[in-house]
């Protein structure tokens, strides 16, 4: 049962990623082709999700927007989870001055408001999705390094690590054999559940005009640009909204099932 669930959600998550990768070939229309005579058309068989102010096909834009949103989010989460984990393990394992410096830097990053940081990055590098990713990555990694450090600390002091150390394992062997395998699960789960949050953060930056620049289709900016049409042409804002919703739900459920699968405790309750 559990395995089946895992396979289903893994398949759905993979499907989303595949759609994002092959978006170009899946669009029924050119997502950037304007036709002002066909603006604000309600959903129909010709335009499944209707058209926007410029007469662009919403369905195509949602698909191509997924490419930007999903891939940007996955890239962001990938970068911060890997770098954050490495830093956290090093910091927790070696302790001392390294630990102190790393933790203070991470405090610094966490303490700096993301909004302001994104603004500064946008002002220095210019606006755009990828710069927004850079801005968020620079300040979001400490979340992972904290998780990784905490776990490392508690594992480091456990009896089996002490035993391995007595048996003559060096630091790299200890990290590779004992610490990493025990950390990877919780980190993976955190990352899965983080996908939704990061997607929201990118959307929030778009709302403030610090994210994607026109005409790039990105779900967050499509929603924020279309928000004044909620009452008049709801499909313009609901289509990307539903897309965000579905993908966040799938990644979250996938994360949940992964956690259930790797967490021995939750097996016991069943």
């Amino acid at each position, binding site marked *: 049962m559990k395995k089946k669930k895992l396979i289903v959600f893994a398949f759905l998550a993979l499907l989303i990623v595949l759609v994002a990768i092959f978006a170009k070939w899946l669009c029924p229309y050119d997502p950037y082709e304007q036709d*002002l005579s066909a603006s604000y058309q309600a959903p129909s068989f010709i335009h499944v999700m209707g058209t926007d*102010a*410029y007469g662009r096909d919403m369905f195509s834009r949602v698909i191509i927007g997924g490419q930007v949103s999903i891939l940007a989010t996955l890239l962001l989460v990938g970068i911060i989870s890997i770098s954050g984990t490495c830093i956290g393990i090093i910091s927790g394992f070696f302790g001392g001055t390294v630990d102190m410096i790393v933790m203070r830097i991470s405090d610094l990053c966490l303490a700096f408001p993301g909004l302001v940081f994104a603004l500064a990055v946008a002002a220095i590098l210019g*606006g755009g999705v990828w710069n927004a990713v850079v801005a968020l990555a620079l300040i979001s990694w400490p979340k992972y390094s904290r998780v990784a450090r905490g776990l490392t600390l508690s594992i480091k002091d456990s009896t089996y690590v002490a035993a391995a150390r007595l048996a003559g394992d060096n630091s790299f062997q200890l990290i590779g054999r004992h610490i990493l395998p025990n950390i990877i699960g919780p980190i993976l789960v955190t990352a899965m559940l983080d996908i939704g949050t990061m997607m929201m953060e990118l959307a929030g930056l778009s709302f403030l*005009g610090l994210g994607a620049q*026109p*005409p790039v289709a990105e779900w967050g900016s499509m929603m924020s640009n279309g928000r*004044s049409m909620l009452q008049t042409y709801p499909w313009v804002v609901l289509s990307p909204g539903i897309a965000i919703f579905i993908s966040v739900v799938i990644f979250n459920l996938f994360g949940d099932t992964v956690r259930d699968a790797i967490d021995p405790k939750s097996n016991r309750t069943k």
Partner: protein
Amino acid sequence: MKKLVALMLAATMTIATFVGCGASNKEEKHASTGSKVFVFGDTTFNAENEEATIDPHDTYCGWPAVRYGVGETLFKFNDSMELEPWLAESYENVDDLTWKVTLKDGVTFSNGNVVDAEAVKACIEDLVAVHERAAGDLAIDSIEADGLTLTIKTTTPKPTLINYLCDPYGAIIDVTAGNEGGIVVGTGPFVATDLVTGDHINLVKNDNYWDGDVKLDEVKVITISDGDTLAMALQNGDIDAAYGMAYASYPIFENDDYTFTSTSTSRVFYLQMNYNSDIIADDAVRAAIAMGIDKESFVDTLLNGYGYVGAGAYPDSFPFGKGVNVQTYDPEGAKKVLEDAGWKDSDGDGIREKDGKKLSINWVSYPSRQELPLLAESAQASLNDIGIDVQLNITPDHGTIVSEKDGWDVYGAAFVTCGIGDPMYFFSTHCLADSTKNRGSYSSTDLDALAAEMNETFDTDARSDIAIKMQQQILDDNAFVFCSFLKMSMISKANVTGLVAHPCDYYEITADLDIE
């Protein structure tokens, strides 16, 4: 388990109480003792528009002073932007350098002080001492005051002196009353009580108003920068009228519960070409851009028809807005022009090249005028069709970018070309060597000659003729593309009367404004 249910029930009830309280408190707002309060939602009273206070002698703060009925100028414009008396009765152009202005009798400031020639002299002298734009426009040499008569001498011939005095900076204030907290004492139907730019300004009726009864007791202007908040606040009744509604929200209000007041204005959405850029310096590229913009679809579709297709720098409601020849939307023609000039798509990516250089332009614009991003994004697509790649940079920081010579090619902006009813204004600000807004270093000896002629000409009809020639010159050079003019609209609840949109865009709240 019962406890759990009880807890949830308690939670729900707490929320319900919260919401319930809210509902019952709602009534108080309109039930106050018969005093008429008008709440106006506005997008403009903020620092982005250089409106930090309502002191007309500071930057553009005269705009809110006149808009919200605090300040009044010596003369004002009628609906066809012709001069009419306001605080002044009449004027006389004695010679090239001398003007005589006669004030109305019985006008007072809101604090009761009399508006006589001395007071006006003091006000204008303070204005030109602290406001550089005004000092340049007015070029005042000396002012003499005698009873109700002012004699103004200028250092150079200023055919449009009286028009310039109608600019909001010319609002007459009592300079002896100071400007505590940015609040000045004017002559208008309302008196400001407190203000915070970007947030609100509260006004009360001026009991001493010199020109009849003021119908409202109180006016609250609230700055609402978010378009949805503005729309929903009007729907909800939090505000009685709104300025600057997003076009996409118009359909919500196109029914009997609301009134639209619209007028054509001379606020033009235009493109300025940067001659410092090698690509733009190519005549063919500018011509192709001018031909590649579908102005009609932009106005009809993206502005919901609330606009006028632009030709020259002025709307055709002005005598000098007629009779210019302009490129029409002609994508095939544009392709041919580029082709002939050697811009060809040799690598098949849809974008033309010449001498190994891609035909890619940087288009800079800003978001606070909602029309500009729409124009930019629609032009991006139509120019792409003719083989021009357009990179958009739409940012509140636009001013810094276009103040540099390099780094941008086309600037999409908005400007009130005829704010003072005279056609020289646009040219003196945008097209001459010493123009502050000649960002693209445009220069034309023919235009300079026409400008010199204009500065010497006092006759209105003759000025119109020169203005038409000048427009034709910049259009032939494709130095500017005038895409559309704003049809300015205010939307109010149906029970609001006396809110009338004016072409100059700065007469809004008047003594006649009322709620039934």
